[in-house]
């Protein structure tokens, strides 16, 4: 598989949110607005690429039986680094997202890619896979956040275009499930037409 394909497959065919249905916890929790969804996605890209590379490089030396704890420690280290760096240099983003950053550790996408891809492939391929899956995840979260923000608060990326409130339920947890369900239906319909 070429490098480009490695990156693009994460976007549609193996889109972590719409196709693999992985990492639902941050997906539902952080997408109250488009900006939040996008920031969460980008934070995940950072962790995913670095942890994929580190795991791919160390996998041959890690005994099979302790690979999961070893991967979790590696992932948790990168997440904590990200948290400290954000706290220091982007305090504003950290303010809105801080609560969810530690959640990246338990994001199944990160561990899932480590298990399914990084520990069997080269460092470069794993980095491409991380970028692809990460961008797919970011795209999905931004879209979901945008839909929920438009319906729920009547704004897009923070710019309000109606006065008063939107349909509040879309900002709350039940709205997250509803919006996600309709987006998955839409996604399946579009990809089915392509004959996949």
């Amino acid at each position, binding site marked *: 598989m070429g490098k480009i394909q490695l990156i693009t497959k994460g976007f549609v065919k193996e889109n972590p949110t719409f196709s693999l249905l992985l990492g639902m916890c941050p997906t539902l929790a952080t997408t*109250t*607005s488009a900006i939040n969804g996008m920031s969460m996605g980008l934070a995940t890209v950072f962790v995913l690429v670095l942890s994929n590379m580190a795991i791919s490089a*160390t*996998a*041959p*030396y*890690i*005994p*099979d*039986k*302790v*690979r999961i*704890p*070893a991967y979790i*420690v*590696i992932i*948790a*280290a990168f997440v*904590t*680094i990200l948290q*400290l*760096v954000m*706290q*220091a*240099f982007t*305090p504003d983003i950290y303010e809105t997202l801080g*609560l969810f950053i530690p959640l990246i550790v338990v994001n199944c996408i990160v561990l899932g890619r480590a298990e399914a891809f990084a*520990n*069997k*492939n*080269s460092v470069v391929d794993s980095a491409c896979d991380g970028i692809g899956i990460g961008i797919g995840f970011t795209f999905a979260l931004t879209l979901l956040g945008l839909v929920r923000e438009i319906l*729920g*608060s009547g704004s897009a990326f923070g710019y309000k275009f109606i006065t008063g*409130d*939107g349909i*509040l339920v879309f*900002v*709350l947890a039940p709205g997250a499930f509803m919006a996600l369900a309709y987006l998955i239906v839409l996604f399946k319909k579009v990809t089915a037409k392509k004959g996949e």
Partner: protein
Amino acid sequence: MTMAVKSSFKNMTLCLFSVCLVSSALLAAVYAVTKEPIEVANQAKTNNAIAQVVPEFEGDPVPGTIEVGGKEYSYYAVSKAGQPVGYAITSSSTGYGGALVLMVGMTADRVVYNTTVLSQSETPGLGAKCVEPDFADQFKSFNPAEKKLSVKKDGGDIDAITASTITSRAYAKAVETAIAVYDAITAAGTADVESVSGATPESVSGQPVEDENQEIK
């Protein structure tokens, strides 16, 4: 790629030990590098909040702590031209989604000057609206001697946020606590006035503030 090595007690222990060692070394390094910027960012945030909630002042806010009802509260005393302008008091209460932490500014004549939310985890779109001026501005120039500090549902003068009475109550409660802290500070201040050693009279005596003005000039 190569298959993973066969597991034995020795190599499993060794592997986990080295993974943890390298990870913690990495974290220690990042922590050391980011420690100062994080402190600077937090300080800037606090200073910003203080400037928002009290009237114009000179010099640096003087931090202090006071115990009210068995709980310790931190506050900053600010002054201008040697006269105390007011206090920025950190106060918290329990909202719908967790702790609601406010910075409440009190002027020297026992009026709430302004309030700002330091941290909250209320529901987005509902309780989280407590940071918006529509709600928060009700506490601007709020005089507890003239108005009642509770939501209208409870017979007070505060318009609650639609569908977020718990958050609105928590906000009012935090402001109420801050007023109690203010009373405690001023009570401690008058009691200590003769023995200049107390923290509060020192900060309002004007001496340190004048020194700082000279530095600025």
